[in-house]
């Protein structure tokens, strides 16, 4: 029986080569020092957290109509 695939990279050779490469890559990664970075809490910024409420005429009308039966006596 003739084996034509001898020159090609066989399945086992392929995975062996792949595994070797992965180990080498992993070793390269772990060789780097693990540098801890400070945890960063979400900071939306001053513009996003600024006050938007204002006592406009619209809001004043809401307060007036909701307290119409009581606040008018104050």
């Amino acid at each position, binding site marked *: 029986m003739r084996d034509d695939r001898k020159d090609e990279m066989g399945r086992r050779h392929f995975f062996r080569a792949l595994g070797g490469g992965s180990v080498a890559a992993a070793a390269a990664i772990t060789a780097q020092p693990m540098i801890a970075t400070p945890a960063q809490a*979400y900071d939306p910024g001053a513009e996003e*957290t600024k*006050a938007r409420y204002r006592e406009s005429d619209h*809001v004043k009308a*809401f307060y007036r109509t909701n*307290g119409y039966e009581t606040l008018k006596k104050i």
Partner: protein
Amino acid sequence: MARMKFLCDADRCIECNACVTACKNEHEVPWGINRRRVVTLNDGKPGERSVSMACMHCTDAPCAAVCPVNCFYTTADAVVLHSKDICIGCGYCFYACPFGAPQYPKVGNFGSRGKMDKCTYCAGGPESDFSTIEYEKYGSNRLAEGKLPLCAEMCSTKALLAGDGDMIAEIYKQRVIKRGYGSGAWGWKTAYRETVAI
């Protein structure tokens, strides 16, 4: 600085659910999510009470305390908002919230619920005011327009109050004085002691 608060006068709420409908329509909230809901106690029995519930924008918000990615922030108006870009949909805030305010677009296990959605006090989100992206993610920004949350503004019986905490507390206090009795809410005496009549 004004602190934005909700206050539902349970003696006036008639469970019409207009606040729920107004909220869903104003912000185009998708199916399955209710930023606001009306809870009825002792339904059909004497002493029945309905309360409109949403995010209460807690001063020391438990949702923010448990969030593993710190996506919550409190504005200068004391409105608790969150960033959907940072939210991972873990669901911790839902377990922490005493009002059941956080909602999720999908039913699923950890991490598969989608981005959390909740009442924004009609104050939009971290994106720039009145932008399309802000509206798509968080709904309209009525507070920046000089208005108050629509749920409260369109309450037909004026049960749901919103706005400056001092102002709506004064309105409610005057109502209680006129009626001659308080809300009778559970925990009232614990919170305010028996010496406080109102």
